[in-house]
C-alpha cells in the first residue's frame, strides 16, 4: 500500500492532463460526458492529494518518485524526479482544491459559451501544469510546467474574445509572461552550466559550495525575477489587472489563487532550499522589499478602478505582496505566516472572484459605477461577498485576520530582533494596507450590492444552486480556517514550515542518505513557531455570549416588531411606480442614482494624494512596451544587487 501511495503524485498530475485530452476526444459530441470527465479528473486529483496528507504532513515522510525508475547513480541524478515534501503538498492541496471549486463552478457559469471543449481542455492542462510544478523535483521540469501554465492561462484569458480588451489583455500577458519565462530559462541554463545537474535536491546540495561563483548570484537574480513575474509582483502587476478584467471568473480564480501561488512557491523553494541564503540580510531586504512595495502600490491602485474584477485583481496582487513580505523575513514565524496567508488568499480571493462572476453572469456588467442595489435581488451572493470582503480586509473572526495578525507579529518581531527600522516601516505599511483594503471593499459593497437598484436590473435573479455551492464551500473554508488557527498551525503550517527549513532532509530523500552531510548541509527544521494564537476559542465564546445577551436585551426592550416591518417593506416593494416626490434631492437638484460614484467615494483621501495617484495612473500606461521595459529595468537592478552582494 505504501509503495502504491508513492505513485500518487505522478498519478494526480497525469489525471488532470489525461482528463484534459480525453475531454477533447469525447467532449465535442457529448456535453454530459464532458462534464463527467472533468468532474472525475478534478475529484481524482483532489482525492489523491488528500491521500498524501497522512504520510507527508502527519508522518513527515518525503515521497520521491523517479519517472521511468531512473534513480540517481553514484550521486548524479539524471532522471526526472517528483519530490513531495510537506511544502509541495501544502501548495498541491491549495491547487487541487482551487481546481475542484473552479471546475464545478464552470459547469453552470460557462454554460452560455460555445467551444467548451477548448475551455475544459485548457483548464485541465492549466491545473495539471500547476500541480506538476509544485510537485516537481526537477528544475527544467518546473520550467516546462511554467510554460504550459503561462500559455494555457493566456489562451483562457482570451477565451471570451468578444469582450472588449480580451485579446489585448492576453497579448500583454503573452509578451511579458514570456519575458518572465525567459528569465527563468536563463537562470536554469546558468545553473546547469555550472553544476551539470537539474535535480533540485542535487542543486541544493552543490550550490552552497559555489558561494564564490558570481554566476550563482546571476542565476539567483534571473530565477527570482522569473518567479516574481509569475506571482505578478511589482512591476508585473498591470498584467494581472488586464488579464483578470477580461478572463472568465473561474479562470480569474485560477490565475489569482493558483498561478500566483506558483510564483510564491518558486520563491520559497529558491531562497530556502536551493540557495539557503535567506539568512543574508540583502536577500531579506530584496524579498521583503518587493513584497511591501507590491502590497502598497497595488492597494492604492485599486482605488482607481471602475471595473469590479480589475479592482479585485489589484487586491489579489496586494495580498500576494503580504505573502512575499512575510516569506522574506527569513524567520519560522514569517514563513508560516506567509504560507497561512497564501492559503487564505486562495480561499477568499477565489470566493470574491466567483461572486464577481455571479454578478457578471446575472447582470452582464462589471461596471462599479453602473451596478447597485443587488443585495435585494441576490441575497446569497451578497452574504458570500461580505464574508469574502471581511476576510480579505482582515476582520476578525475570518481567516484573513488570523494570517495578517501573524504577519504583523512576524515583521514586528523581526524588526525588534534585528533592531532594524526597515522592518518597522514594513509593519506599518502592512497595517495601513489592511485599512486601505477595507476601504476599497466598502466601496465595492456600496456600489454593487447596496445603494439604489438601477431600473434595468430590476429583474435580476439569484445565481443557480450549482454556482452557489462552490462559493459556499469557499465561504465555509474562510470561516473554519479563521476560527481554528491553532489547528491550522499544527496540522498544515508547522509541517510545511518545517519542510522549508529542512533542506538537508529534502536532499537526502532524493539523493540517498548522507548526501547532504557529504556536502556539509545541515538543517535543523522547526518544531514550534514560538507564538501562540491570537484568537483563542475562549474569547470568541465570550463574543458569542455577548451576542446572545445583546439580542435578548434588544428583544426585551420592545425590540424589532417584525410584523409591522414586513408590512412596510412589502407595501413598498409592491409600489411599482415611484412617485418622484419621494426621490432624494440635493440642493434643489434632482438626484441621479448613486450620488457618490464608486470613483469619488474617497475624495478626501484621493484629493490629498492626487500627485501620487496621477503618477501611478500614468505609470500604468497600458502599453506593453512600457511594461516590458519596467520588467527589464527591475531585472537589471536585481541583477546588479545580486552580483555585487552575493
Amino acid at each position, binding site marked *: 500500500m505504501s509503495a502504491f501511495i508513492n505513485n500518487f503524485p505522478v498519478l494526480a498530475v497525469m489525471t488532470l492532463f489525461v482528463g484534459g485530452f480525453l475531454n477533447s476526444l469525447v467532449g465535442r459530441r457529448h456535453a454530459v460526458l464532458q462534464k463527467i470527465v472533468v468532474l472525475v479528473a478534478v475529484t481524482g486529483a483532489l482525492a489523491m492529494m488528500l491521500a498524501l496528507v497522512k504520510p507527508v504532513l502527519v508522518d513527515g515522510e518525503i515521497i520521491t518518485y523517479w519517472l521511468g525508475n531512473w534513480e540517481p547513480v553514484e550521486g548524479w541524478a539524471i532522471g526526472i524526479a517528483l519530490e513531495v515534501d510537506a511544502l509541495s503538498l501544502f501548495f498541491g492541496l491549495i491547487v487541487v482544491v482551487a481546481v475542484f471549486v473552479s471546475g464545478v463552478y464552470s459547469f453552470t457559469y460557462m454554460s452560455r459559451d460555445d467551444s467548451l471543449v477548448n475551455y475544459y481542455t485548457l483548464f485541465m492542462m492549466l491545473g495539471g501544469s500547476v500541480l506538476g510544478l509544485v510537485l516537481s523535483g526537477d528544475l527544467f521540469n518546473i520550467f516546462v510546467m511554467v510554460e504550459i501554465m503561462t500559455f494555457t492561462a493566456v489562451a483562457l484569458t482570451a477565451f471570451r474574445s468578444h469582450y472588449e480588451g480580451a485579446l489585448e489583455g492576453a497579448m500583454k500577458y503573452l509578451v511579458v509572461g514570456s519575458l518572465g519565462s525567459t528569465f527563468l530559462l536563463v537562470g536554469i541554463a546558468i545553473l546547469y552550466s555550472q553544476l551539470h545537474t537539474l535535480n533540485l535536491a542535487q542543486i541544493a546540495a552543490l550550490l552552497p559550495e559555489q558561494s564564490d561563483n558570481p554566476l550563482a548570484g546571476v542565476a539567483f537574480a534571473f530565477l527570482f525575477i522569473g518567479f516574481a513575474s509569475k506571482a505578478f509582483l511589482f512591476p508585473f502587476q498591470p498584467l494581472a489587472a488586464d488579464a483578470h478584467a477580461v478572463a472568465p471568473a473561474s479562470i480569474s480564480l485560477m490565475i489569482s489563487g493558483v498561478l500566483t501561488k506558483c510564483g510564491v512557491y518558486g520563491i520559497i523553494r529558491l531562497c530556502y532550499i536551493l540557495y539557503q541564503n535567506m539568512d543574508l540580510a540583502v536577500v531579506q531586504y530584496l524579498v521583503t522589499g518587493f513584497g511591501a512595495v507590491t502590497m502598497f502600490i497595488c492597494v492604492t491602485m485599486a482605488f482607481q478602478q471602475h471595473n469590479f474584477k480589475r479592482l479585485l485583481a489589484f487586491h489579489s496582487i496586494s495580498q500576494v505582496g503580504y505573502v512575499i513580505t512575510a516569506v522574506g523575513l527569513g524567520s519560522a514565524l514569517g514563513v508560516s505566516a506567509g504560507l497561512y496567508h497564501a492559503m487564505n488568499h486562495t480561499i477568499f480571493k477565489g470566493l470574491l472572484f466567483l461572486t464577481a462572476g455571479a454578478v457578471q453572469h446575472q447582470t452582464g456588467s462589471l461596471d462599479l459605477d453602473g451596478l447597485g442595489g443587488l443585495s435585494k435581488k441576490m441575497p446569497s451572493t451578497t452574504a458570500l461577498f461580505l464574508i469574502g470582503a471581511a476576510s480579505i*480586509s482582515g476582520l476578525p473572526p475570518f481567516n484573513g485576520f488570523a494570517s495578517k495578525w501573524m504577519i504583523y507579529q512576524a515583521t514586528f518581531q523581526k524588526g525588534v530582533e534585528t533592531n532594524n527600522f526597515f522592518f518597522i516601516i514594513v509593519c*506599518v505599511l502592512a497595517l495601513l494596507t489592511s485599512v486601505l483594503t477595507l476601504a476599497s471593499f466598502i466601496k465595492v459593497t456600496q456600489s454593487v450590492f447596496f445603494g439604489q437598484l438601477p431600473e434595468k436590473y430590476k429583474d435580476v435573479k439569484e445565481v443557480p444552486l450549482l454556482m452557489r455551492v462552490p462559493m459556499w464551500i469557499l465561504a465555509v473554508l474562510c470561516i473554519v480556517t479563521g476560527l481554528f488557527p491553532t489547528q491550522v498551525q499544527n496540522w498544515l503550517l508547522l509541517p510545511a514550515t518545517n519542510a522549508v527549513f529542512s533542506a538537508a532532509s529534502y536532499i537526502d530523500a532524493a539523493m540517498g542518505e548522507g548526501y547532504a552531510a557529504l556536502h556539509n548541509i545541515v538543517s535543523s527544521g522547526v518544531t514550534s513557531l514560538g507564538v501562540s494564537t491570537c484568537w483563542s476559542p475562549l474569547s470568541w465564546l465570550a463574543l458569542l455570549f455577548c451576542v446572545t445577551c445583546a439580542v435578548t436585551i434588544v428583544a426585551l426592550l420592545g425590540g424589532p416588531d417584525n410584523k409591522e416591518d414586513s408590512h412596510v417593506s412589502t407595501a413598498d416593494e409592491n409600489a411599482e411606480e415611484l412617485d418622484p416626490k419621494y426621490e432624494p434631492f440635493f440642493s434643489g437638484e434632482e438626484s441621479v442614482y448613486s450620488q457618490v460614484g464608486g470613483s469619488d467615494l474617497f475624495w478626501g483621501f484621493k484629493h490629498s494624494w492626487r500627485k501620487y495617484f496621477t503618477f501611478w495612473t500614468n505609470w500604468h500606461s497600458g502599453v506593453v512596451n512600457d511594461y516590458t521595459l519596467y520588467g527589464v529595468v527591475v531585472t537589471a537592478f536585481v541583477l546588479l544587487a545580486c552580483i555585487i552582494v552575493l
Partner: protein
Amino acid sequence: MTDLLFNLIYVLLFPGLLFCVVMGVLLAGLDRIWVARMQRRVGPPLLQGWYDFLKCCGKETIIPRHGKKAIYYGAPLLGFVALITISLFLPVVNGQAAFSGTADLVVILYLLTLVSVCMIVGASATGSPFAGVGLSREMVAMISYELPFVLVILTVSKAVLAAGDGASYTFSLQAIADYQAANGPLITHWALIPAAIAMLFVIPCEVGMHPFDVSEAETEICEGTLAEYSGPPLALYRLTHMVKMFIMTALFCVLFLGGISTGFVVLDTLILIVFCLVLTFLTMSLPHAVCARFKTEQVFQFYWTVVAGLAAVSLILVWLGF
C-alpha cells in the same frame, strides 16, 4: 461551574455589558453638560443619553424601500457586541483583563475597525444617498486616524519590549500592563509623550466627536450614516457611540496611565473613572466647544501630517533607545 459563573459576571456585569453602558451614558451626559456650560447653556440632565436610548427603543422602525432588512438590524447589533467584547480584553482594573492572554492590541485595533465597519455597512444597506456620502466620509476618517493609531501601538509595544525580558507576545496588553505595574505609567517616559498626545487626538476621531464628526454632519448631510435609521437600531447606534467614548478613554488609560493600582478593585475602578472623565473633558468636550467641524480632507491631512508625525517622532525616539 464557578468558572462559568465568573465568566458570565465578567461578560454581563463587570467589566462587560452593564459597566460599559453605565460608563458610556455617564461620560456622554457629562460631556454634553460640559459643552453646554462652556457655551453658557444649562445643558441636558446627566442621563439624557439613556432617556434618548429608551425613547428610540419605543419608536417604530421604518426600513427604507431600498434597504436590506437583515443587515439593517444585524449591523448595529454586531457593532455593539464587538465593542463590548473589547472591554473584556482591556486590563483596566488591577492590571488584569477579564480574559487575558487571548487578545492583543492588534485584535483591539481590528475590533474597533469592526465597529466602524458595522456602522458603514449598516448605512450602506439603507440605500440612502445621504448615507452614501456619510459612509464615504467615515471611510476617509478611518484611514485618517488609523495611521497614527498604528504608529502609537508600535511605539508602545516597542517601548515595553525594549525593557522586557523578550516576551513572545509582541503586542500583548498584559505585557504593557505588567510593565507599567513594575515601572510606573508609560506617560512618565518622556520619549512617549508625543505618542500620548497623538493618541489623545485619535480618541475623538475614532469616537466621531464633534470637530471630527464628518460622517454624521447633521447640518450638511442629515446625519449621513444615520440618516435612514430609526427605532431600536438607531438606539443601539447611539448607545454604541456612548460606549465607544468609554472604551477609547479606557484604552488610553491602559496604554499610558496603567500601573496605578491600590490593590482594591473598587478604588481602582474609581481611579479609572476619574481618568476617563478627565480624558473625556480634554479630548472631546474641549475641542467640541472650541472648534467648528472640519472638512473631510482637512481631517485627513491633519491626521496624516501632524498627528502621525507626533507618533512617528515617538517611535523613532523609542527606537533609538531613549
